[in-house]
């Protein structure tokens, strides 16, 4: 094996070189991603031009925005012909956009706390790693929220809660023998509690009481969140029951569920809202009319639950029949097999659909502005745009409403994606 000492043979390794400029770093990325072919290069240039013109066109509008003025004419005077936004309307009417124009200003802390506590109450439901004891607060929360938002004596929600708790206790006690007996006893005990508790709370109207705020005074974003939260949280269990009822082999239950779902799905939400607002009013004597908000909440809950029922039915149908048979062969009864085997899987499949319907519902709450309720959009369309001070400020107000809804809805959809990954147990 001859020693290779020819002078044209290199003896040492060449040091590692940096790649050529066109093959590394930013330049490489740009070449690969933006200018990889003549067609892509043209598209890139065009897109950059479009982005530039949007920014160049709208930036002065934002930058010149006027934040301090008492009317739109003052804004025009300050801007003096220059293009610019009149954000002063947002500054002056911000509380109205959030709380409506009749919620007492000294009580704004109550909806604020209620919203914060909503996050606390939702946390154990949404995040499974948190201690389970927090769920107790989630159960108390609806009653606490009612007291905070509507005010009045604390005895009303306390009595409601105790009646509810007593009913559940009796149900548990008696349903071990017979399910129907448990339901009947539970309902009777709860009703007795509410009946006598009602006298108690009527007699002590000042006991630990907050200033009472009638439903008609709710408005702004608060009303949207109120309607959306209640409608969604009530309609999810209702929708699950409807979906199960639709698959039931008992004809009466089955047909009640089918007719309910198909009727509600066949009618536009705005029609139901008009029914809630104008038609129902004819059926009540004038002095005993039920709260407009309550009527709207009931209609929205019905509407949403019909849609959720169909989403859950899709989940149930997607399960292989082997799962049902496995549950039966283990000797589980209907309730057990649903609770332990079928629903956990079916609901996991249904999450994207349920979130989709719920986000849609939250946005649909703005429809109440058509039946003259002053939600966020209703406040803008009615009282704010009709004042002689702010008549003509559209972009700022509707842009603000769009931004608020985007933040809320986008966070919900991000959460649902995270939840899907958490629950991902199959090996796709």
């Amino acid at each position, binding site marked *: 094996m001859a020693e290779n000492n020819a002078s044209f043979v290199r003896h040492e390794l060449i040091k590692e070189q940096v790649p050529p400029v066109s093959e590394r770093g930013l330049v490489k990325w740009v070449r690969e991603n933006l200018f990889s072919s003549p067609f892509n290069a043209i598209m890139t240039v065009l897109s950059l031009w479009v982005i530039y013109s949007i920014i160049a066109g709208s930036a002065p509008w934002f930058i010149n925005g006027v934040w301090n003025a008492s009317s739109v004419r003052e804004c025009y005077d300050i801007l003096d012909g220059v293009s610019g936004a009149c954000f002063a309307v947002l500054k002056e009417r911000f509380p109205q956009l959030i709380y409506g124009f009749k919620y007492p200003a000294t009580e704004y802390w109550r909806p604020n706390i209620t919203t914060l506590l909503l996050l606390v109450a939702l946390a154990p439901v949404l995040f499974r790693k948190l201690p389970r004891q927090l769920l107790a607060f989630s159960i108390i929360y609806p009653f606490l929220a009612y007291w905070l938002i509507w005010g009045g004596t604390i005895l009303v929600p306390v009595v409601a809660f105790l009646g509810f708790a007593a009913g559940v206790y009796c149900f548990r006690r008696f349903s071990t023998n017979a399910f129907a007996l448990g339901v009947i006893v539970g309902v009777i005990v709860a009703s007795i509690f509410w009946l006598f508790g009602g006298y108690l709370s009527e007699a002590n109207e000042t006991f630990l009481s907050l200033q009472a705020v009638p439903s008609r005074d709710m408005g702004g974003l608060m009303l949207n969140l109120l309607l959306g939260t209640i409608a969604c949280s009530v309609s999810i269990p209702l929708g699950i029951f409807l979906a199960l009822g639709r698959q039931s082999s008992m004809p009466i239950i089955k047909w009640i569920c089918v007719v309910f779902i198909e009727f509600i799905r066949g009618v536009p939400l705005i029609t139901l809202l008009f029914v809630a607002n*104008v038609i129902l*009013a*004819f059926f*009540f004597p*004038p002095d005993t009319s039920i709260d407009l908000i309550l009527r709207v909440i009931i209609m929205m809950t019905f509407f949403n639950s019909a849609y959720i029922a169909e989403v859950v039915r899709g989940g149930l149908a997607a399960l292989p029949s082997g799962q049902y048979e496995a549950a039966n062969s283990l000797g589980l009864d209907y309730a057990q097999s649903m609770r332990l085997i079928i629903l956990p899987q079916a609901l996991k499949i249904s999450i994207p659909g349920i979130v989709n319907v719920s986000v849609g519902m939250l946005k649909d709450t703005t429809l109440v502005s058509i039946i003259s309720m002053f939600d966020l959009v209703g406040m803008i*369309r*009615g*009282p704010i745009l*009709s004042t002689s001070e702010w008549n003509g400020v559209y972009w700022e107000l509707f842009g603000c409403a769009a931004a608020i809804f985007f933040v809320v809805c986008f966070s919900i959809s991000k959460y649902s994606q995270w939840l899907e990954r958490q629950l991902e147990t199959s090996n796709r």
Partner: protein
Amino acid sequence: MKKTVFFGALTAAGLVAGLASAGTLEDVKARGTLNCGVSTGVPGFAEPDANGKWQGFDIAVCRAVAAAVLGDNNAIEFVPTTGKTRFTSLASGEIDMLARNTTWTLSRDVDLKFDFVGVNYYDGQGFMVKASTGITSASSPEIDGVTVCIQTGTTSELNLSDHFRSIGMSYEPLPVESGSEAVANYMAGTCDMFTTDRSALAARRATQEVPTDHVVLPEIISKEPLGPLVRHGDNEWGDVVRWTLNALITAEEFGVTAANAEKLSAGTENAEINRLLGSEGTMGEMLGLDADWAKRAIMSEGNYGEIFEANIGADTIIGLPRGVNAMWTNGGLIYSPPFR
């Protein structure tokens, strides 16, 4: 059989509702608040301010009635209504009276079963166009085929089609829900022309960036007597609202203002003022109210003229002239039957 039961229940519910609303005056007194239907917002006529307090020309009528009946011009539950919900709200008894830019027409009075108690503003439908279009008349040939923004559920919608039929030209209606939306579309150029009552046009024009860029055309294509209304068949309550409005008008005629009503109520040389303010006669008693009812109504926001000037008059941003809404003594149409 089931159907019969259902209709029976409906009838019973209807009867109960009818009986319970038989005496609106008693209901209002027992409740302690007046449920007054208003619009969701028309500049100058009904608008909540930054503190959420309703104010405006129509609101003042509600306040005067509340002051006359309940002695407190803040004892009012304002119920906002849209053009579509206003009549059902009144018919179902959700509101006691409606003071919301509503035109008095035969079909509303007779067919919908309401009672218009009077007219607080004589309006007429007009058109607004951009000055740059060069249109100067609502019957000139240039307007053939224009797009017109029009609020749905209003008499303006019907008048518009009558007008274009009579001049034999075509137009493209762009239906919108509220005045604000109509203006937004008009400003964006989606429609060439915006039509509604001239008072509202003037208000909308006044709040534009450059008011002189817009022209309110001279044609008035309809009569729009606007006034408060109540349910048909409850005449005692209708009388209260009617005579409260008349009291405000009579007060202007005889120079009774919010400032001097207290002093004049002690008694004056003028018998009509004395009857109005309760120092003579039993006018209040006849209406089922006390003697000071009209004094309280006037002291709430002033007489008709004061209310007009404070909300929509020449010194406000709306800047409407009195025009046909001047006192009959000044050649206008505002006239009240005598207090006798």
